[in-house]
């Protein structure tokens, strides 16, 4: 199970964004919020560790990590469950 707040917490503690992650909506563009290419790689690795998952090759793309909603969808898919709101 993964919630948007789980992802917000991870983003807020990471220092990868230039804005406060608590104020981001589901669909806000994380790249516009300061996420860099290397930041998105670190985010990917942190999500794998936090949720004990491994992103397959086809998900290793910019779009997978573009918003909290997109991340929640991808992580939920890999956990095999449904995404919590």
């Amino acid at each position, binding site marked *: 199970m993964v919630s948007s707040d789980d992802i917000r917490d991870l983003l807020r503690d990471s220092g990868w964004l230039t804005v406060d992650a608590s104020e981001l909506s589901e669909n806000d563009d994380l790249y516009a919020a300061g996420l*860099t*290419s*290397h930041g*998105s*790689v670190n985010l*990917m*690795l942190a999500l794998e560790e936090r949720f004990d998952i491994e992103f397959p*090759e086809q998900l*290793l*793309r*910019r*779009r997978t990590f573009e918003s909290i909603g997109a991340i929640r969808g991808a992580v939920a898919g890999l956990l095999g469950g449904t995404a919590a709101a």
Partner: protein
Amino acid sequence: MQSGQTQAGHGATDDPQAAFRDALVAAGLLIPTGVDGLYGRSGVFEDVVERFNDLITRWGRDDGAEVMRFPPAVARHHFERSEYLKSFPQLAGTVHSFKGDERAHQTLLRRLEEGEEWTDGQMATNVVMTPAACYPIYPTIAERGPLGGDGALVDVYSYCFRHEPSLDPARMQLFRMREYVRVGTPDQVMDFRQSWLERGRALMDSLGVPLAVDVANDPFFGRAGRMLAANQRDQGLKFELLIPITSEEKPTACLSFNYHQDHFGLLWDIRTPDGAVAHTACVGFGMERVALALFRHHGFDVRAWPGSVRAALWG
């Protein structure tokens, strides 16, 4: 023949890359050293490189770039800050030297004499091989403070090192890269890259070689690297001008046109006059690769090259 002394498991002459390399060696254009990707160049080869270098200068002259020439090494503290190790740890080359006392020297000589491992006693120096010609310019520009309204345009040329031994003569470990690097606002650097995409194609057309321009990615390391590569392609940040050299199916990147967005601007804190983080872009020319493409398509005898090509290079 020296060229046959390649590393174990290689050297098959039916390999088109090895065959072309052997032909270049036999013609005296490349001088083998016994290490794949490390070659001397003949006078004829060097003349082609120099003439091509002059041709680039002529095509870029009106832009008034500031010329900077660095030795083929960067300061280790600059290299460490550049994040090169995040993306390409497999390609980097650090310079190590002996720093021991007389006793350690004796040990070194004994190990060498007895064919034992001796390099583990070598210590890192503050010198790292230049991975791309533009690397020394970012800290240099940053040191000057905020950019002027016109930003910066720099002309660099250097030998570069990448640790990727290969039979392919177009993949050398030490090769030369000429670059123009633009630093400024996103609009300034995108205009620069677009103009060089057009100019680069026209310049190479004048040399009568078959070419194509395509979107590309850098050889980022590992799984994280696959994501960086996908990001780079998705965003169209890198284009290459490709010329077939040892393969029609897999042509060789001879020029590249790179938009780094704010990567180097953020790393080095380079600012535009209004305080925004500067963006950067560069056009890079692989000097040996272009020379090899010319030898491949026009033959090993430069006196027999087409008149238009000779005119473009030798005037």
